[in-house]
Structure formats: C-alpha cells, structure tokens
C-alpha cells in the first residue's frame, strides 16, 4: 500500500478529473432537458435527481395502469384530512355552486371557471389506483376534465415549465412538470364511481395525477398557475411536500 506508483497516481488523477468533468457535463445537460427536480439540493439531492431524470427519460408518455370495472374497490379509503375551514363549509352548504377554479400565470387568457364550465369541456373517465406513500391503495373510477384541455382553453404559453395547483385549504399546494400536466390521465376530477366526487375524497374538485403517489393528488383545488420557475414560490422547493420533508417528485 505504501509504494504508490507514479503511473497509478497519474491514472487516479486523470480518472478523478474525468469524473468531475463528467458530473459537470451531465448536470448541465440535465438542466437543459428539464431532468433536475426543484428539491435537487441537500444530502438527498443526488438521489432525487437520479430518480427524476431516470423517470423522465423512461416514463414521459407512458400511461398509468387502468383496471377493469370489476376491480373497483368496494372499500376505498378516504385519508384523514384537517377539519375544513369556514370558507369550505360555506361552499359545502351551498352545494359548491359558487366554487371557482382560477387559472392564471403564463396563460394567454386567465380565467375563473365554475364546475359547470369545467364539465362543459371534454370529460375523461378512468379506473386507476390511488397509491399512498404509506403503502396502502385502492382502485376507483375517476371522472373529470383533463388538465391539458383547461390549459389549452386558457392558452398556456410555450415557456411554461410547471403547473402549480392550490387547495382552498391553507398551505396545501403542489406542482407538476409539463410531462404530467399535459398527460392525458392528469384530471381535474369532479366525479368518482359514477357520482359526484365526495368531500372525503377531495370533492368538489381534486387534481388526480395517477402516475404519482396520492399526496400529489391535492384535494379541494381552486387555483392553478402556469409558471416557468418554482423558485419564488414558498421556500422555493417546488411545493408544500418538500417543505414538509417529502420528495417533490412522487412517481416512486
């Protein structure tokens, strides 16, 4: 061990230099092609970046598994939520007739849509699984308006890179990249199993992102924003999840 040869030293030095240069080049390419997640810093950043980049190279256009009607769960599990605010209770008492979804940010025509405006757009229904990061799951039929149709109707600008979506409940917001925003299965969901979407499952309006874990499917959506950067929002980590210690990309 004590007599390290000159050749070994040079080889090791060259390998280390090549390694550093390789990582720098890879990181610059990854940034250009949108393969770096907003929570790419810190000790978990390298793993998170590898995961997101690999998923984006492999899964940009793939469809979440859909199931036959017979597999719809008879006992779907509505995860616990905080008690609703007074504002939500007023909407509930009103049967959500005044519920609005505002669409703003990098769109040509910002809009405020009622639930019936949404229902006037083409609907899509799909039988997909809700997968919680804790480990449990259930299958339901989800009926709603594809996010892509709302984005096209409001003229989303080509420079938009993320769609941020907010719950009426405080500090509950998430964001997805355009691969998920333009994905045909990403639904502004207002129906479940042939009925209205129950409040326990996110009614009147829930963003369903079936290729990601349940916590990306935020309940009680009342605002979406198109943006080219997540830096100025909250703590700049992309969404509420990383601020609570959870990964921004939840496809795994």
């Amino acid at each position: 061990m004590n007599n390290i040869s000159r050749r070994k030293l040079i080889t090791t030095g060259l390998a280390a230099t090549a390694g550093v240069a390789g990582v720098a080049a890879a990181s610059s390419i990854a940034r250009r092609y949108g393969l770096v997640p907003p929570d790419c810093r810190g000790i978990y950043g390298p793993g998170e970046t590898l995961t997101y980049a690999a998923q984006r190279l492999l899964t940009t256009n793939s469809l979440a598994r859909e199931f036959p009607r017979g597999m719809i769960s008879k006992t779907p599990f509505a995860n616990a939520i905080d008690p609703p605010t007074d504002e939500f209770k007023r909407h509930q008492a009103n049967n959500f007739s005044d519920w609005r979804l505002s669409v703003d940010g990098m769109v040509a025509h910002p809009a405020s849509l009622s639930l019936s405006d949404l229902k006037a757009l083409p609907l899509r229904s799909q039988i997909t699984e809700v997968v919680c990061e804790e480990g449990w799951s259930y299958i339901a039929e989800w009926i709603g308006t594809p996010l892509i149709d709302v984005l096209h109707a409001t003229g989303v600008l080509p420079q938009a890179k993320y769609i941020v979506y907010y719950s009426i409940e405080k500090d509950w917001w998430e964001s997805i990249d355009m691969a998920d925003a333009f994905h045909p299965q990403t639904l502004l969901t207002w129906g479940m199993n042939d009925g209205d979407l129950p409040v326990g499952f996110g009614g009147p309006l829930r963003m369903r992102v079936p290729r990601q874990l349940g916590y990306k499917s935020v309940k009680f959506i009342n605002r979406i924003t198109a943006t080219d950067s997540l830096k100025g929002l909250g703590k700049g980590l992309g969404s509420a999840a990383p601020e609570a210690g959870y990964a921004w990309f939840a496809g795994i």
Partner: protein
Amino acid sequence: MCYSPRVSATGSLRNSEAPRGEAPGEEAPRHTALVRLTHWITFIAFVALLVTGIEIVISHPRFYWGEVGNSLTPPLFTIPIPASRSTVPTGYGYVLPDQNGWSRYLHFEAAWVLVLTGLIYGIASLINGHIRKNLWPTPQDRTPRAFIGRITKYLRRVPPDEAESHAYNVLQRTAYLTVIFILFPLVIWTGLALSPSFDSAVPAAVNLLGGRQSARTLHFFVSGSLLIFLIVHVAMVVQAGFRSRMRAMITGQASARSVAAEEERT
C-alpha cells in the same frame, strides 16, 4: 459465512490469482480492492435501506395480497407494532412520529448507490473471472455430499482449515451467489414495482408479481431474507475469527503471518 481465495474447500489447489495493479513482492490480497470497496459500499447502502424501510413499514404495518389493500380491507398479516399514522388500526393508543419523508428520500438514494455499486461489481466480476473462479462451485463441490460434508463441519464447529482461509467453501459460494443473483435482483424488482410511474412504463413489473400489494409484501419478505443473510454472515465471520476476516475485507491483508503478528502485539 465469510471468506476467500486460492484453495477450494475440497482442498484442490487453484492458481493464485494475482490481482492487477499490486506492487510486486507484496502478498496477493485475499479480497481485491474492487471486492472490498463494493462490499463496504453495499453494506452501508443496505443498512440505510433497512433502517428507512422499517420506518416506512411503521407508517402502515399491515400487509396484503393482490392489487389493493388499505385499513378497510382484511390484511394478509399485521406486524403487531404501533404505527406512525392515526388512520391505521393497531390496537395501540398512541401514534409514533412520522419519519417517512427523510426515510423515503434516503431509501431511494441508497437504492441508487446499491444498484450502481452492484452493477460495477457484477460487470467487473463477470469480466475478471471473480465469479467463475471464486464463487461458482467447483465440479467436485456440486454434489450433495459436499454440501452435507460442509454442513456437518459447521455443526461440529470444526474451525476452518488452512484451505478455507484461502477460498470460499461450497456453502459460502452458494449463499453469495444466491444473494448476488437472486435476492438482490428480486429486491430491486419488487421495489421498482412499487413505483407507480415506473409501472406505467413497464406494467409487467408489477402485474407479474400479482399486483401492487403482493409486490409490497414480497419486497418485505425478500428484504427479510437479506437481513437473515446479513445476520448469519456476521455470525460466521465471528466464528471464523472476526479480527482476521474484518482485516482481510478492509485492508485485503490478512495472511496467517500478519494475523499472528497482530495477535502477538495485543
């Protein structure tokens, strides 16, 4: 289970394999630098995966079979521990703190380290003959008699002979090959099958396992098998001589001579 090179357990002399890049005159290490490095990186990554995996299980210590399962469906089995979520019926009157955020971050980061390290080890070992020479059982070892013979030796607590401190015996080879080529690939597969996004690209990954909850349950059992291997492995290292075996896996230098010298000093 422990340890390696040069003479097989049945005593047949093998060609000493001088690892490249070692200074002449120095004794050939029992484990090559690549084996030592990948062994310890894998160990660290595995411990991280194990700890974070347990933390994630604590958020829902119920297991199911098939595609779906939740607190409202009957479990296949339940681990009788408290949970870190109030929505799980555990029978305990309290809820543990939520550790899933950092556990999930670290679980996947450690998984990357393990997979990349495993790829480097696997490819290099296939090319340089480590698997063929040191791990694949020799023809005379591939008999029930050889297995039974070595098991009997373990049961009688016969200390490893000189030949065995230079080469893996048939039980070690079988155990290591099982871990490298069956358990690790299975734990990676069952883990990947839990990614809804990966499943969208490769639905067979989860469908072949019988559904998402089956994949989760299998991931748990394969991880358990790896933990059992780790425990037996460490027990065998202790039985064979903890200091010499650890020294061999850390420095590569644990010849009879250097160990004797070490024992003299202490």
